[in-house]
């Protein structure tokens, strides 16, 4: 899952980015409103965490501009301005969730997870698709046979993206986009290595290769 973090406080960004990456998100940071709006329109993000007090362009305006141009990127608004009228205005501008500062990182993570499930029409709680259950907090997977496997960072990111987009053809470049952030070294061949590893855990037929197109996670085996 690739996440856009629009926040101008560098100290907060430093700790938050670490926590988010640790939780399995590929994180890109925008420290002003203009960059944030531009990046948010790139269509490579699964979720955005948007601070309202951004320099150059106010967070509310960024959000309004996204929504008026038809961008439905799920957005969690993060702000110290947590009076109720500001929350209502935030939701009116198109926010999907709202978190007032100060906050606990666990709460932010829980809300991001909940929002991702919601926007991918998944139920709250553990992510479960076609008998495969993913514990996003522990980054572990339970297969149909009941075996629990611990996943590495990239495996977890990849599997989560598959589970949230079942039965869709996902190209290698799309998978790369949603698993790595801008700063990572990207080698699309590495994806094949991780797919192979996931197949070992899930069974061969769960992830199907469509030649020249990409991969499909099948919700029914």
């Amino acid at each position, binding site marked *: 899952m690739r996440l856009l973090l629009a926040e101008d406080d560098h100290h907060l960004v430093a700790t938050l980015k670490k926590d988010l990456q640790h939780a399995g998100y590929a994180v890109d940071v925008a420290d002003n409103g203009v960059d944030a709006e531009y990046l948010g329109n790139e269509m490579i993000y699964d979720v955005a965490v948007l601070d309202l007090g951004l320099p150059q362009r106010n967070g509310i305006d960024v959000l309004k501009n996204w929504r008026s141009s038809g961008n439905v990127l799920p957005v969690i608004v993060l702000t*110290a301005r947590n009076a109720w*009228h500001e929350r209502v205005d935030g939701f009116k501008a198109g926010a999907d969730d709202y978190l007032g500062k100060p906050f606990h990182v666990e709460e932010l993570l829980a809300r991001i997870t909940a929002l991702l499930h919601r926007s991918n029409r998944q139920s709250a709680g553990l992510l479960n698709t076609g008998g495969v259950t993913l514990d996003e907090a522990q980054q572990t997977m339970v297969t149909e046979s009941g075996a629990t496997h611990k996943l590495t960072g990239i495996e977890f990111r990849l599997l989560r993206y598959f589970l949230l987009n079942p039965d869709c053809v996902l190209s290698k470049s799309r998978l790369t986009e949603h698993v790595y952030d801008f700063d990572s070294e990207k080698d699309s061949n590495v994806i094949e290595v991780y797919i192979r590893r996931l197949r070992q855990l899930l069974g061969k037929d769960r992830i199907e290769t469509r030649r020249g197109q990409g991969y499909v996670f099948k919700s029914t085996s």
Partner: protein
Amino acid sequence: MQSLQARLSTGLFVSLVTVFSALWLIININIQFLAEEYIASRLKHDADTLLNAISFDANDKLILNNNKIDQVYHQPFSGHYYLISTRTQYKQSRSLWDQQLKQINIATGEQLRTHQPGPEKQSLLVISSGYQISDSLFTISIAEDLNPIKENINTFLYWFALISLGMLVVLIALQAIILRYSLQPIIQIHTELKSLEQGQLDKLSTDSPRELRPLVNEVNHLLSVMEQRLRRSRNALSDLAHAIKKPLTVIQQVAINSNIPDGTKDTLVQQSSEILQLTDRILKRARLAGHSHSGALFSFAEDLPALIKTLDMIYTSKTLQLTINMPDNITCPIDREDMLELLGNLLDNAYKWANQHIIFSIKIINSALHICIEDDGPGVETDKIKELSQRGVRLDEKTAGHGFGLAIVADIVNSYGGHMDFNKSTRLGGFMTELVVPIQQA
């Protein structure tokens, strides 16, 4: 103070009635005087004619030449009478018949004007003059009935009064119309002030007469100054909150992620949270608009659904049934931000603690807004509820969940001069908050 229109109308009415009454009185007195003067001068002429008919014989006996006397003095009770008298004898006109005039003797060259009752209830004007022919002294009293001319005068006065009254009514009606027309701008400002109070207008219209324009401009100026001041101070406070919270958030995050001993870490986190809460509460209290009309007003039709949608989104993981009891077309002049903060905190608590049901009731009774929010959550123990009600919600309140949010609600309710009560919901079994806020109703 009495209304301007009533005062002007009363003044004009009284002065008009006074002027017309005075006019009527003056004309009445003058016309009586003139009529009497006219008759008196005629009587003097008649006396001169009569004088020509008078002579005295050798025995000093009074002789009258009837041929020289006007016929009217021969008809009985004609209203024209005379009486010629000396010290020893008198002669009176045939028209007096069996009646008599009062005998008056005055010195030669003197004249006397008297009023006497005459025959057949006539009221007579009598002019008596003293004369002398050779050695004989005598007095001629000549009289005329005033009733016929009085009747004419009365008829005239009656018509005059009637026409005057008609004119008075027309004038008063005209005045009322002129007054209403002239006071129109004031009435307009009056209605505008009312809509201003209810927030339907944000300033007075400047299309007013020259005399009122300075007042209107001043009011508008004050309104804009107040609005700007409120907005500026709210923005400044919001910025301050933002500026304080950011570093505190960072301190907390750094503390949590650092390797310092747990005790120190906890203290650091706890202390910074306390600063945050205090800041939050004090800033929120400072932002309250209260009963000043200088911001957007809460709209039940727009803001309430938006607030509920917001809460639904925050609590997506819960499926709650929210029942809203609210009259249609409810309006109340209350600041939008204050009301959103009030309802937001109350409903947030309810959403947080409810299992399935929330009942939210709003009604307006006797210029007071009644709000009641009930949930089916765990509620608060009875002794804690008492404590809440008795002490009021204090800053250090740490009642599970129903703590901090209620403090700001209490601040808002206090700033509006209202009160609130906590109870156990009889319908749902959870927590119930009831509050009454006085409002200026149309």
